[in-house]
């Protein structure tokens, strides 16, 4: 932790993440308006005292939508990464611990998944499941676990050669126990790093999906769909794309800076 504080970029990342998390958490209290309140008398009003970020094409307050959008975007990011990390840890542990044919099968599955474009998987699954916030999280999660699997496996492979694991094996500790008490805790660093970086990617994926019309559905606000709505008016209603664009930029940057800071930190420890 001390090292994070010493690294100004990582510290900035941490502060950004915390700030945005607080904004998202208290969105309902901070929003001056109902994010879905339509006012067709004030369509596309530029930022002013009443609407500090202006209004959108249906006269909804952009600031309130941005706050609620933060909730959705972060939720999508965190849940999706939660799912992918969980799958990655389980499969990576099995592959790295048992080696042999299990390892081969899992790693070939990783290869298979990597060779099918994730957008295609997402499109097909969303078409099948019909889009909802939860389905989008699940889909992003189910299509991005391969990196974590490789990572956990690689960590296990190098850890398994270490003396303390060999010692644990000789005293007859159960496989599960070795994995849970020795291997996983010692691979935690890289996993945390990849999780933090994963949230950043998921937020970006959500905005890309929104561009293609596959993201979070109306009228729910997410940064991705506010930005996509705004792109039509980029030369005219600049506020509609500037704020969500910057919000995504800052958030993704925050997670990346923190992730990279953590990586540096763990690298120095090992």
């Amino acid at each position: 932790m001390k090292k994070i504080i010493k690294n100004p970029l990582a510290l900035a990342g941490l502060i950004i993440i915390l700030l945005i998390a607080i904004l998202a958490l208290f969105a309902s209290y901070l929003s001056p308006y109902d994010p879905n309140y339509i006012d067709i008398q004030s369509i596309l009003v530029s930022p002013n005292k009443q609407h500090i970020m202006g209004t959108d094409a249906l006269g909804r307050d952009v600031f309130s939508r941005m706050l609620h959008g933060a909730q959705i975007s972060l939720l999508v990011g965190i849940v999706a990464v939660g799912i992918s990390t969980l799958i990655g840890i389980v499969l990576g542990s099995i592959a790295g611990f048992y080696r042999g044919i299990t390892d081969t099968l899992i790693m070939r599955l990783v290869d298979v998944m990597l060779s099918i474009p994730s957008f295609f998987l997402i499109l097909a699954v969303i078409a099948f499941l019909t889009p909802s916030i939860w389905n989008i999280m699940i889909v992003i999660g189910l299509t991005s676990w391969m990196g974590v699997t490789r990572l956990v496996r690689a960590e296990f492979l190098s850890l398994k050669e270490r003396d303390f694991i060999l010692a644990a094996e000789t005293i007859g500790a159960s496989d599960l126990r070795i994995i849970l008490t020795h291997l996983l805790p010692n691979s935690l660093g890289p996993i945390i790093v990849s999780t933090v970086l994963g949230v950043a990617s998921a937020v970006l994926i959500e905005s890309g999906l929104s561009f293609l019309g596959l993201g979070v559905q109306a009228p729910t606000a997410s940064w991705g769909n506010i930005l996509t709505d705004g792109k039509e008016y980029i030369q005219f209603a600049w506020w509609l794309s500037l704020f969500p664009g910057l919000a995504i930029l800052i958030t993704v940057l925050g997670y990346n800076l923190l992730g990279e800071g953590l990586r540096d930190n763990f690298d120095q420890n090992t």
Partner: protein
Amino acid sequence: MLKYLLKRILWMIPMLIGISLISFFIMHLAPGDITSNESAFNPKASEESRQKLREMYNLDKPILVQYGLWLKRIAKLDFGNSFASHQRPVLWQEKDKNGNIKPGLIQKALPITLLINLLTIFLIFSISIVLGTIAAIRKNKIPDRLITLFVFVGFAIPGFWLALLLMYSLGVSNQILPISGLHSIGYEQMSPITQFIDMLKHLILPVFISCLSGLAGISLYVRNGMIEILNQDFIKTARAKGLYEKKVIFVHTLKNALLPLITILGLSIPGLIGGSVIAESIFAIPGMGKLFYDAVLMRDFPVVMGILTIGSILTLLGNLIADLAYAWADPRIRRGLSK
């Protein structure tokens, strides 16, 4: 080593079948087929005629039968023709009896995407090596921090937003660069040199946008690799021997730090043929991304399967090359590679 190689190559066959089977089923998971698109809500188009189309394309058969038919064709390297009404060949041009040539879909889209991706990868690697090296030498000092910040901003900025901003400021407000497309009007009448310059001008923005998001990964990889090696004994020895600092960095460190990049390069091979739908739509570039996306939306199965098959062959080859390079280079790279 040879045995390992052989094993890996043999593994590719069941994997390809696996990938194609999974893709085939996923594709059919999404409801609809080619007939449900353009004419689905045209009151002049009757359901009987759509049913007729479905029979012509074997879409009325069970999925497994359809897969079998597809596999049989693909085994003969026949990628078939698109279901779209132009019926163009998926892969390569075909000649009709009068010698007219119908160009293949992938044949037309791939060179464009390849050109953009090769330019992008070349730029990403060269810029990243420079940035990464500077960052490593000035580790934790201001240049390092600035570079880190810059590459992350590049990664974090939503590409389509930046693209539209750049198009507006450089193409509309100040007409320095073309906005979209690959060629200007009147391209055919230009001299080869002006044609080349014209095309380059059209590629600046798309390549810039796709470079930006890729810089972070590679430059930090170079930076971390350099730092790791700079801390190692033989560099320390070299320094102790009083070798001139720059020489140490360039000859010893860089060489060692760049070896693992070959692995990354191998992993980029499948990415070479994949274009970004979003960038291609915005910049009106007829590349692989848009081709694939449209095919998925249209449920143009032969095109979807054709692109996926070629993509997966390249991915598997790329993985193989990466793994070989991985084994051949430094075993310590593992951790970095997994990112």
